[in-house]
């Protein structure tokens, strides 16, 4: 039994943005366990007001440096939904491929550079460069592949330059896609090695029941658009996203919090798999099985594994998408735009969970109101309550301060939070 401890991690490292962990236990009683978000807000929803529709994807992509592609695509989809535009099959395929590659690069970044050091008791990946060069090289190879792919399809790996309302400004060349395919095929081995590496890591044993929200796949593992599904039984159309988020403000956080059926909710890779396990591609499912990842899994640390499974999932799916692109003649990259007034919502699964953009346009296509709900925003309350439960469990088990601090940090990192994005 642990009697007292006082942990304060000011600006948790190896996460995107600024957040603090506070845990205070006194006389064996938990006094405080909190997830404090101190990021400065940038007010994207206000700055978009009055801007013309073509500014929306360009500006709102800057909400996040890690998932700028996801934001851009969500924004574009919201605009297209207002204008009643239906993207061509080619555009949809390319967008999904682009998104997959962002997911891959983001997950690899998280798994190797941000999460892995904890499992080998290091502060960063740097020492591994000399001690385990093959591991670092593998990570770099996977990330490079994904980023190169983003360059080819989106024009730029960060804040893409080819993605516009109506489609793309330019298309990749077939030879580029052919080369990408070869590299993706070769990456399967790297992913298997990655899985092997993660089997050597001890995933902390911690469970707290919560509600998982994600897109609902119909015939394939979902990433762009469709219904919203929760493990507590809600099934809503895309445009009713507010019922799935219910943002509210809390004192300890400049990021808002969300909840649906309970105290808190979770989104992300684990939520996606919990809701769509049956839609995983064969190899991805095999990896899930390897780690015993089955719905509904309530161990937040397993989000790391869920990300790993998704890496395999997106590579498998990308190969199919490329085959489809290679099999058809390239058509016009871009559709013309006809401006309309109205409200449009887009739900897109970005690496850290479901992302919503919603715009209200006037007749000239100027934004009257903008709303963006970020995955980490939806996770913040869950992180907070997880920390509470974890602290209680640790106190009960009599863990040392260092152990508690590490477990707490790892817990938050497992969500791969994107804090500046959640504050936007």
């Amino acid at each position, binding site marked *: 039994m642990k009697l007292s401890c006082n942990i304060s991690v000011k600006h948790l490292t190896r996460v995107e943005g600024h957040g603090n962990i506070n845990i205070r236990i006194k006389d064996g009683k938990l006094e405080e366990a909190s997830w404090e978000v101190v990021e400065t807000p940038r007010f994207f929803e206000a*700055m978009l007001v009055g801007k013309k529709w073509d500014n929306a994807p360009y500006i709102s992509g800057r909400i996040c440096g890690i998932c700028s592609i996801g934001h851009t695509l969500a924004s574009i989809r919201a605009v297209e939904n207002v204008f009643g535009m239906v993207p061509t099959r080619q555009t949809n395929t390319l967008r999904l491929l682009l998104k997959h590659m962002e997911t891959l690069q983001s997950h690899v970044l998280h798994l190797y550079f941000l999460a892995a050091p904890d499992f080998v008791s290091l502060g960063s990946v740097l020492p591994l460069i000399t001690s385990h060069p093959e591991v670092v090289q593998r990570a770099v190879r996977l990330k490079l592949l994904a980023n190169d792919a983003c360059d080819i399809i989106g024009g730029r790996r960060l804040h893409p330059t080819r993605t516009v309302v109506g489609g793309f400004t330019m298309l990749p060349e077939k030879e580029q896609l052919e080369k990408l395919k070869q590299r993706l095929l070769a990456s399967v081995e790297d992913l298997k090695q990655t899985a092997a590496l993660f089997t050597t890591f001890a995933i902390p044993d911690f469970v707290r029941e919560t509600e998982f929200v994600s897109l609902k796949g119909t015939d394939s593992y979902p990433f762009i658009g469709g219904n919203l599904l929760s493990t507590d039984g809600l099934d809503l159309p895309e445009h009713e996203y507010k019922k799935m988020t219910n943002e509210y403000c809390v004192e300890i956080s400049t990021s808002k919090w969300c909840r649906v059926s309970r105290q808190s909710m979770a989104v992300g890779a684990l939520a996606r798999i919990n809701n769509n396990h049956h839609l995983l591609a064969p190899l991805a499912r095999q990896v899930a099985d390897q780690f015993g990842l089955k719905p509904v899994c309530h161990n937040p640390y397993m989000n790391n594994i869920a990300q790993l499974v998704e890496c395999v999932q997106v590579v498998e799916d990308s190969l199919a998408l490329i085959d489809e692109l290679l099999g058809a003649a390239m058509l016009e990259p871009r559709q013309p735009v006809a401006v309309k007034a109205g409200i449009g919502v887009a739900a897109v699964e970005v690496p850290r969970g479901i992302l919503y953009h919603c715009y209200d346009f006037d007749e000239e296509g100027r934004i009257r109101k903008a709303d963006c709900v970020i995955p980490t925003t939806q996770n913040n309350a869950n992180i907070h309550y997880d920390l509470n439960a974890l602290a209680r469990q640790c106190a009960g088990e009599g863990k040392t301060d260092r152990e508690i601090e590490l477990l707490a940090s790892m817990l938050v990192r497992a969500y791969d939070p994107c804090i500046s994005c959640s504050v936007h």
Partner: protein
Amino acid sequence: MPANLTYLGVELARPRVAFFELSSCEGCQLQLLNNEATLLDFLSLVEVVRFREGMTEAGDDYAVAFVEGSVTRADQELQLAEIRKKAKVMVAFGSCACFGGVNQLKNRFSDQEWVKREVYGDFHVDTQLARPISDVVKVDLMIYGCPVKKEEVERIVTDLLLGKAINHPKYPVCMECKANENICLFDLGEPCLGPVTRAGCDAWCPSNRMGCWGCRGPADAANIPQMARIMAEHGFSTETLLDRLECFGGFAAHVEEIRKKG
């Protein structure tokens, strides 16, 4: 890793570098991790003592501070002053730090209370106008771009190590756009700020058929009145011109002038 490096027989001290972020998307720092192919070479050139996005250890003994993001809260001013005290070279890293970046778009509303209410309702949040870091402390070097271009960052860091002066191109993006033999976007019916924006990005956007939005700020001889004429001649409204000019804050003075003229 070698403590000291040499070039042409001259000993070069590996600079100790630290990274900090204010209000930003952290994309510019991410660009460093996006250096995959050359990441290891990069790490042998410098000694990273602080990089919150990637490492837990945090040193306070650094010579070069890369600061990303713009200033939007009082505590950041204090933080900047602290960093300035320690750093020999203060680098404004990315357009947010150089000009305020997209963050300064909120400054265009005269009623900043409305801005807060629009996002947070009645809930209290602490915030000020978004400013470039040079408004608060002396900056020694600007690295432009939203995001910064990794090749450029690498060259700059190598040059810093060698003691070379860092010279940004003084000419506009059009120069690089032509060197890429692109079809001018105006010929394709798209607006572009290439004629007035500082080059150095290798015409990143126009080469992908996206008009330039001016993320690197004005070129040395930016001819804004002529730019306005060109936009008008090609059928683009002043609103479109202003949307782009004001997007990253680099053209703030010009925007103000155009607005004043009405």
